[in-house]
């Protein structure tokens, strides 16, 4: 188990801090404050008639958590890496905590608020409604997703190749 503050990157007071990660070669980020822990991947127990992007459930510290796969949520058909990472996130709705599977955790990204730009109507094929902002990190875009909306909306998404 990895605490978010052990990941490289500095959180600077007054700036917006996000945890960066990769999904299908794209850089994404979520609010660092919504990330509780980072875990190594473990195979979940499959539950019946689960949503397409839900892999099942895991047991962590006396809690049972739904495991959501962000690759599948973003409509990526290709299999991900053999050892993805699990972000334990503040949940939405009736699940107080949920486990989000991403390809690889990168680092903490702390930027002033004005460095996060409003998203275009679509970014990587994702509608702006699901994006909190876009930043530039070393010449590569980083998409800060609104995980609460993204994971609870039934709207299908197709990540552009």
């Amino acid at each position: 188990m990895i605490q978010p503050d052990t990941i490289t990157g500095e959180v600077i007071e007054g700036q917006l801090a996000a945890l960066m990660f990769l999904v299908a070669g794209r850089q994404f980020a979520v609010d660092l404050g919504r990330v509780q822990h980072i875990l190594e991947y473990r195979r979940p127990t499959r539950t019946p008639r689960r949503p397409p992007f839900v892999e099942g459930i895991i047991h962590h510290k006396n809690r049972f958590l739904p495991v959501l796969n962000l690759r599948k949520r973003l409509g990526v058909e290709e299999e991900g890496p053999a050892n993805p990472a699990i972000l334990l996130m503040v949940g939405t709705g009736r699940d107080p905590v949920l486990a989000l599977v991403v390809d690889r955790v990168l680092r903490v990204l702390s930027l002033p608020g004005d460095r996060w730009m409003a998203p275009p109507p679509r970014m990587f094929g994702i509608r702006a409604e699901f994006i909190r902002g876009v930043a530039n990190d070393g010449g590569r875009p980083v998409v800060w997703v609104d995980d609460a909306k993204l994971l609870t909306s039934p709207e299908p998404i197709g990540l552009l190749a």
Partner: protein
Amino acid sequence: MQFLGPATRRNRQPQATAPTESFLLFRVGEETYGMGLQGIREVIEPRESAAIVPMGFQVCMVLPHRGQRLPVIRMRALFDVSPDETSATARVLVIREGHRTVGLLVDEVLSVAEVDPQRICPLPAMATLLDPALFRGVVARQDRLLVVMNERGLAEFEEVGAFYAGGV
């Protein structure tokens, strides 16, 4: 003479054991599920040649049983496990909840396990699209997770209700 101090006396006192409940473990597809043994009246072999699937029913079928008609929930259909077919090891768990007797067609009956019912927690809401009332919860057992079914929820399943309402 041997001195038994307070620490030794504490260690020798019998440990209180948590009360357990017996659960029948069964397989549907590749996953194992559980149901309280107390609610299970009998386990029978399915006679699918005698099965009737009422018009409009997606999940349930009706089997003759002891001179009566028994509504049977095909668990593979309920759980959307493909292919929707019956294995040679399949069995019907006959449960009775209130005034309703219902059968559950499962792929295989496995074993009986003792579980502390206090350790059964609600199934996470995002884990399934099915009615939460069908599940009693989930429990960690021997490094595995066991999803436990709810007899009452199954007896109140929509198609079972339609059967007993006389619409079949």
